[in-house]
């Protein structure tokens, strides 16, 4: 929470990237507390690790100072945010209590996964068996999303660079990122 607020206030983007990394790491430890180790693992490696490096790479390409925005009236956006936030919080009143065994989420397919996956799939990590087998379509979709995103990024910044650098003779200097 403190890091999130600091991220909003700071204008130095380098510090913002670092705070984002810390924020990711904190959320990862929060996931560990909630017993979601697989999610925590992903958050720590992707959010705190690689995403930080990518953002630093972007900073190296652009600039590390945020532009001061032109003066604007914050009242209307603030009102919109407050109304939306209030509606969302009002919505949470209808959500069943966290950890309540009678929750719909614990009644639907989860018990079957937990009870039968040991016989049907035979591996101890139920997260893996749900991810790769019961929900194989979803994961295939996720991989395709990653694939498509990468194609997009590489089309935007990957090949254009190579074509141009072939045209001009550039001095071959040591990378010091």
């Amino acid at each position, binding site marked *: 929470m403190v890091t999130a607020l600091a991220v909003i206030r700071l204008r130095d983007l380098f510090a913002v990237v670092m705070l984002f990394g810390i924020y990711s790491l904190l959320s990862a430890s929060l996931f560990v507390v909630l017993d979601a180790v697989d999610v925590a693992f992903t958050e720590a*490696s992707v959010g705190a690790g690689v995403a930080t490096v990518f953002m630093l790479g972007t900073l190296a390409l652009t600039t590390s100072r945020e532009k001061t925005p032109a003066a604007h009236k914050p009242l209307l956006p603030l009102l919109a945010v407050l109304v939306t936030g209030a509606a969302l919080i009002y919505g949470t009143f209808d959500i069943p209590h966290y950890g309540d065994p009678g929750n719909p989420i614990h009644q639907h397919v989860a018990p079957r996964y937990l009870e039968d996956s040991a016989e049907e799939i035979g*591996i101890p990590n139920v997260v*893996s068996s749900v991810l790769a087998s019961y929900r*194989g379509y979803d994961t*295939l979709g996720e991989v395709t999303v990653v694939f498509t995103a990468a194609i997009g990024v590489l089309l935007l910044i990957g090949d254009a660079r190579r074509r141009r650098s072939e045209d001009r003779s550039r001095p071959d200097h040591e990378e010091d990122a």
Partner: protein
Amino acid sequence: MKQYSILRLITKLLLPLILLFALYVQFHGDFGPGGGFQAGVIFAAGFVLYALVYGLDNARRLMPTWLPRLGISLGVLIYAGVGVAGMLLGGAFLDYGVLDPHDPVHGQHLGILLVELGVGITVASVMISIFHAFAGRGR
């Protein structure tokens, strides 16, 4: 970063451990936390670290640009291929039980292992490719 000899040495020491840990996360995902997504990211992080410390040119020598680009599609192909293989063997798409005719549980094991491998290859390749593209652009 020629002058930081400590950094270079530590990177050299850490790199095999990072890659080994990535492989452990990849293939031990059935038993502990982890799986293709995490393993791919950790694997890529090893190469990103190498590129940061030793420079992009050396990293390109270690991992030529075409290799991760091939891997991006190869991983998806492995995943979908496992699904199609299940179909050819008479099951539904992505039904791993038919992969082993004698024991559906073994088929599930095999299917999950292959599918996670596909995920890992794609994720690692994507991360390395994007990093190389980013780092190469600023020059």
